[in-house]
């Protein structure tokens, strides 16, 4: 509530400041109608606002002044000297009270009865009231230094100034690279860069507002709605302190209102129904907000009757959207998602509250328009949960840049499901009329050529690079592009209406060098190109109809590594396949690195002393956070592993060997690759390890291998996940760790069976691995 109160104080103070001149003028001429109206509006607003807060004195005063002024306005009363004085005294007292409220002091309780009596016209002439001298000036000076109210345009101006500084900095950076050598300005330049980044962060934060301001309006809404419907609903708000871009707050307001109205109207039952269902009489509506990385998750949860998916299904059949057979094959979740079909609603009757105007399909489309998603979960009889995910800020959008017909475009990354290339093999096409389909994970996806969709030139026949885009719920399609450049964090700017009218773009952005790039509205492009809306559903039905006789094996990419061996790697780990010249490889051998685009990645699959082919096929592997590269001669095809994987010894980076289409292939152990080669993520995520024993030896000999295994070595009394105890070390040190590994200084089996010889590296690593696995379990 603090936010609201601060707003109230600031607003009232602003009005007081503006009023100062009016008061003097009104005092000089009490019959001045315009001045009278201004002052009336002020006390009226104050009275209205303090209804939200518990300030009875403030309310009584402003109420009395409002009544008196209303009489004057209605010519029921003549504004005599005493009335004018009384009104002015009220305004002064409001000023004093505002200061007290802001300081958090209790409102002083000096009687206002005299003043109110004068205002109500029932005081005798003899009664006088105390003037508060100098109230206004102190009110103004005390607070103005603490907060200022800025027009949003000014902040936007600063923001765009900072964006320009970033562009200028990038320009300088490029020139410095071209100079190639010590110019002596690198250090000040990097300092400048850091400062610019700092300012940019700060200015981005000024645009942030607590979501509380939006949430605070819901209890009232729910109260009014439930009263109207004869329901009892508790509303619970969680985590209103999550901050969100102020424009984003405006954008989610309507979708949230719609969902809340729906929950109150259709979700939560009437008290009698609830009692009959064995629930508490009053329904519960929980609205929560959480931040996760750059996304805000907003949940709206009710404990009502849940979505009646059978009714939805009936309606879908009745409306001719689906056939009865399709419905039968659908899962419950798929049926629930029918609620997003245009023109479907479970409401028995059209009510005044949820109405019929917009459906959930529109709500979802609106959320998706600014890069958000809407998900729904519902359990019959238990309730429904809506989850809205929106980006933290509108202005910075993680994007993928692609090329079509020689022109660069950006795609908001939230839509990108995957990038597939025909170069990887295994893509299966089908031509149906004018539409080409590609089979991707058992689904036939419509291919849309980006160049063709934009009318740039006829679609190239041999398009082989596809961005798989996911629109809302699984409406997937494949966008054929000529090239894929890079991921960027781009600042999105609005486009002029003349360009927006084509409906193909959502905005414009600039690359580092300042070139403008259009940001694609991939949903509009897809639907305009005629991809079916319910694609995933009908195909899901078809897939189930075909009856899965064979258990789905691990999908793998088969490739020939640099030594000519046939190998396989889990397809989900391969983010991209790129071609790179041998030149891009630094330091060939086990510690090789490769330059791919703007990234320097560790390169695996390069044995010591091998001669590199002129061109390598490099697979970018990712675990969602880090990337490493794997070198190959050639990527062969995509296959499904159904055979047994047999372990082989002496191949630490291989899971084992298996048969694919009658030929052997070694399956690469992605876990081992990432465990050994990805940069260790710093921070609390990694397990901690303590070394107890002869300090020098432990630190120097054991420390590095433990750190390389991903542990963080801790000192002192900090609790650790694993402790290494040197021979003879007191046992009680074990208490501070969850796992202990004991070392002994003599080889052989002698002595303590549980301990490990300090130079038995394999046993050591195995023990560490086991400890890690047990801890993770």
């Amino acid at each position, binding site marked *: 509530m603090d936010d609201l109160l601060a707003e109230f104080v600031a607003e009232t103070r602003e009005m007081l400041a503006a009023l100062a001149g009016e008061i003097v003028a009104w005092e000089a001429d009490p019959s001045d109608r315009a001045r009278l109206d201004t002052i009336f509006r002020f006390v009226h607003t104050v009275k209205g606002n303090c209804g939200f807060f518990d300030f009875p004195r403030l309310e009584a005063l402003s109420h009395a002044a409002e009544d008196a002024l209303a009489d004057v306005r209605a010519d029921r009363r003549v504004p005599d000297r005493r009335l004018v004085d009384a009104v002015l005294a009220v305004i002064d007292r409001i000023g004093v009270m505002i200061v007290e409220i802001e300081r958090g002091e209790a409102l002083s309780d000096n009687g206002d009865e005299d003043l109110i009596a004068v205002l109500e016209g029932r005081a005798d002439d003899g009664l006088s009231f105390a003037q508060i001298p100098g109230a206004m000036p102190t009110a103004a000076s005390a607070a103005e230094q603490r907060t200022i109210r800025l027009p949003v345009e000014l902040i936007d101006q600063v923001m765009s100034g900072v964006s*320009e500084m970033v*562009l200028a900095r990038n320009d300088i950076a490029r020139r410095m690279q071209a100079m190639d050598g010590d110019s002596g300005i690198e250090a000040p330049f990097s300092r400048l860069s850091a400062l610019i980044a700092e300012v940019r962060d700060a200015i981005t934060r000024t645009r942030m507002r607590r979501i509380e301001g939006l949430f605070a309006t819901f209890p009232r809404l729910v109260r009014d709605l439930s009263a109207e419907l004869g329901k009892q609903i508790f509303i619970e708000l969680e985590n209103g302190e999550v901050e969100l871009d102020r424009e984003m707050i405006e954008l989610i307001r309507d979708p949230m209102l719609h969902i809340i109205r729906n929950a109150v109207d259709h979700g939560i039952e009437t008290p009698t129904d609830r009692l009959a269902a064995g629930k508490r009489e009053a329904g519960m509506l929980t609205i929560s907000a959480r931040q996760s990385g750059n996304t805000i998750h907003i949940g709206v949860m009710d404990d009502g009757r849940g979505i009646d998916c059978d009714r939805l299904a009936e309606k879908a059949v009745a409306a001719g959207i689906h056939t009865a057979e399709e419905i039968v094959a659908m899962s419950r979740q798929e049926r629930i998602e029918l609620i997003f079909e245009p023109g479907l609603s479970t409401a028995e009757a059209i009510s005044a509250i949820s109405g019929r105007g917009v459906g959930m399909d529109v709500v979802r489309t609106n959320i998706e328009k600014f890069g958000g998603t809407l998900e729904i979960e519902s359990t019959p009889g238990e309730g429904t949960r809506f989850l809205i995910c929106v980006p933290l800020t509108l202005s910075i959008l993680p994007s993928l840049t692609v090329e079509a017909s020689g022109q660069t475009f950006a795609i908001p990354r939230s839509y990108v499901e995957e990038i597939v290339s025909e170069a990887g093999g295994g893509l299966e096409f089908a031509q149906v009329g004018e539409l080409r389909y590609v089979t991707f994970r058992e689904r036939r996806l419509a291919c849309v050529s980006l160049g063709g969709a934009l009318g740039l030139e006829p679609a190239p026949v041999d398009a082989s690079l596809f961005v798989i885009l996911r629109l809302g719920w699984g409406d997937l399609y494949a966008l054929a592009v000529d090239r894929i450049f890079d991921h960027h964090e781009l600042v999105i700017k609005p486009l002029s*209406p*003349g360009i927006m009218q*084509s409906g*193909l773009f959502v905005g414009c952005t*600039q690359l580092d060098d300042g070139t*403008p790039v259009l940001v694609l509205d991939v949903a509009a492009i897809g639907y305009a190109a005629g991809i079916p809306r319910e694609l995933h559903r009908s195909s899901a039905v078809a897939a189930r109809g075909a009856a899965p006789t064979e258990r789905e094996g691990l999908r793998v990419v088969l490739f020939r590594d640099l030594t000519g061996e046939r190998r396989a790697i889990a397809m989900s780990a391969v983010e991209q396949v790129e071609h790179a010249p041998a030149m891009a490889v630094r330091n060939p051998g086990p510690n090789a690195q490769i330059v791919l685009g703007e990234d320097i990645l560790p390169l695996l699959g390069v044995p010591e002393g091998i001669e590199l082919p002129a061109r390598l096929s490099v697979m970018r592997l990712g675990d969602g956070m880090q990337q490493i590269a794997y070198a190959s001669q050639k990527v062969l095809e995509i296959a499904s592993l159904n055979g047994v994987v047999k372990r082989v010894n002496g191949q630490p980076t291989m899971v084992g060997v298996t048969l694919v289409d009658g030929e052997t292939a070694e399956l690469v152990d992605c876990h081992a690759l990432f465990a050994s080669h990805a940069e260790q993520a710093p921070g609390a995520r990694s397990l901690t390890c303590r070394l107890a024993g002869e300090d020098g030896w432990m630190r120097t000999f054991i420390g590095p291998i433990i750190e390389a295994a991903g542990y963080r070595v801790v000192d002192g009394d900090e609790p650790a996940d694993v402790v290494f105890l040197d021979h003879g070390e007191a046992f009680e040190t074990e208490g501070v760790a969850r796992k202990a590994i004991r070392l002994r200084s003599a080889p052989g089996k002698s002595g303590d069976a549980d301990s490990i010889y300090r130079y038995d590296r394999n046993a050591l690593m195995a023990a560490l691995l086991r400890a890690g696995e047990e801890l993770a379990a």
Partner: protein
Amino acid sequence: MSEMLLVVMLAGRRAALPAVSVNSVIELGEVTPVPCAAAHVAGLAALRSRPLTVIDCAAVLGVATDKADWRRQRAVVVEHEGHLYGLMVEGADDIVAALEEPRPLGADPGPGWQHAALGRVETEAGALLLLDIAALVAGPAESKAA
């Protein structure tokens, strides 16, 4: 009162734009073409960090232009309804003072010009046609009621 006017060369003729509306005159750099946009939208350029919609004024007038290269073309930057536009002209050099209020065109200067003109204004540099920024931004006459 004498309004200041920017004299531009457009389709081989001299015309005027109100100087108060003019943000700056720039030489265009890279112009990114915009697929599926109206014909008179030449593309997007950037004025520092703000996008600039480049308007091919000659196309608005219905005069065919050589679309080969927009680079090094002059553009008058104006702000219209919150967006920046670059009005592509052949030249923009002088600023002159208007000698009187603009008045109706009188004789028809040709359909394209008629559409894009606010009126005729007498200046120190002779009589000039006063261009209508809103009409230039909106595009050729065909797109509206003729």
